[in-house]
């Protein structure tokens, strides 16, 4: 590891998300007015602009919607991590989120694979959400 990687600067909109991850829970914002579920966390519903939002625990499971394995690091801090696979995960609850894969060889990654969240405690205050293949990893189209 060479130098510090960027850490999320938590704010009022996103505190519940990051605090949830730090205690091992993926929280998604549900709008009580229109029922939409959103990533990322906002002070209002991105669909109806309502402010009555509720954080609910998500399954932490999803499907790989797309991926790219990075061989050329964006900055020196990621030099020791390459190759790493950036994934767009479509969560079972609907929204997509960006993360990286663990426990998976780059050549084995396929769109449609089922994945499960892993909580990666990177500092005393911050836990990053990552994903690994589900044990019974069936591929869906």
């Amino acid at each position, binding site marked *: 590891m060479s130098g510090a*990687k*960027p*850490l*999320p*600067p*938590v704010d009022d909109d*996103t505190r519940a998300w*990051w605090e949830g991850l730090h205690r091992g829970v993926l929280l998604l914002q549900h709008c009580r007015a229109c029922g939409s579920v959103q*990533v*990322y966390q906002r002070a209002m519903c991105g669909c109806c602009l309502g402010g009555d939002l509720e954080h609910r625990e998500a399954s932490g499971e999803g499907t790989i*919607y*797309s*991926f*790219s*394995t*990075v*061989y*050329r*690091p*964006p*900055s*020196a801090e*990621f030099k020791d*991590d390459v190759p*790493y696979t*950036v994934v*767009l995960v479509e969560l079972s609850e609907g*929204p*997509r*989120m*960006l*993360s*990286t894969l663990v426990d998976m060889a*780059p050549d084995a990654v396929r*769109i*449609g694979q089922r994945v499960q969240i892993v909580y990666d405690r*990177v500092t005393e205050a911050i836990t*990053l959400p990552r994903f690994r293949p589900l044990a019974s990893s069936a591929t869906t189209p």
Partner: protein
Amino acid sequence: MARSLSGEVAIVGVGETPVGKVPGKSALWFNAEATRVALRDAGLDKSQVDGLLTGTSFVAPFHRMSVAVSEYLGIQPTFSNTLEVSGATAAASIGLAAAAIHSGLAEAVVVCCGDNMLSGMTRDRAVQALVSSRDPQYEAPFGLLVPTTFALTAQRHMHEYGTTPEQLAQVAVTMREHARRAPGAQMTAPITVADVLASKMVTTPYHVLDCSLVSDGGVAFVLTSAERARDFRTKPVYVLGAGESYSQEHIFCAESLTTTGARISSERAYRMAGLRPADMDVAGIYDCFTGTVVTMVEDLGFCAKGEGGPFVAAGEITFGGRIPTNTHGGLLSYAHPGIPGGFFHIAEVVRQLRGEAHGRQVAGARLGLVHSLGGGFATNATIVLGTERNG
């Protein structure tokens, strides 16, 4: 019929600086020198310029880039702004300049853009500048670089439509062939599909040769009303249509990775122009990566959704094909100085429509499209240009 600027404004001047590695010059110089050449091309004195638009620089520190450029040129415009919609800035700035002229905000507008990303920054600083534009909470901690954002879209296109790495590579090969015909292009050594596939992997499915260049360079245009354009010595190129679309900021919020805002922006531009994709003789398409061209020829209406791979592989984007695209070699082989990159597509289409693309002229080109985009298809802007006011 809604009020429209179609045919009301013309590009009457175009100017470019040398591109590639041009050491010792500032971002301001690239803007100002391109503008000086464009004014000379138009035969317009700088005292007649009352508007100036430009894009942001990665190197220069100015928060008011358009104002800094104006000062360098010794002009005090009454309409000015620095646009920031990443890659889409190019076509978007022409639309905005045309709107300003059509509405009476300005009479003669310079649209310019220049930067010295290659000579003015280390590679690390250039990459860092792009990384620091990612969301600090939801993207940057995962080591997301700009090419990866676009790579995610290409990977999905391959999954949904069977697009192949060879088809992507063909775009790079075609752009290189075009650059060999364009004087001053940065990269002119011939390459093959095999060369592209054998080049170092950056972020799957993109190899180094699937990715655009890092360059120095500047380009500028002079625009005025169609009425005034008659008094200029240059052959006017009319703005017939303009459309934009801003669909999301984060790649994970995109509804689709394979059908983009380009469909909306181009439909708006075609409708304003009263023209169809089949009417276009030549195109400039933002080719920051090979796969963007594949997706764009679909969304811009040149082929059906999913057929972009076979379309580029069949030679449809080169001379003699359905829509000769980036006849100067594009961002992949001519030059990509950052935000200015997309402005070179406009310059090339203008030259094609004037009949001045010596050695690479598309015979009889009357109508052209330019599409600019940025941020993993977050931003899209399309313009339709033509040699006649009525398309």
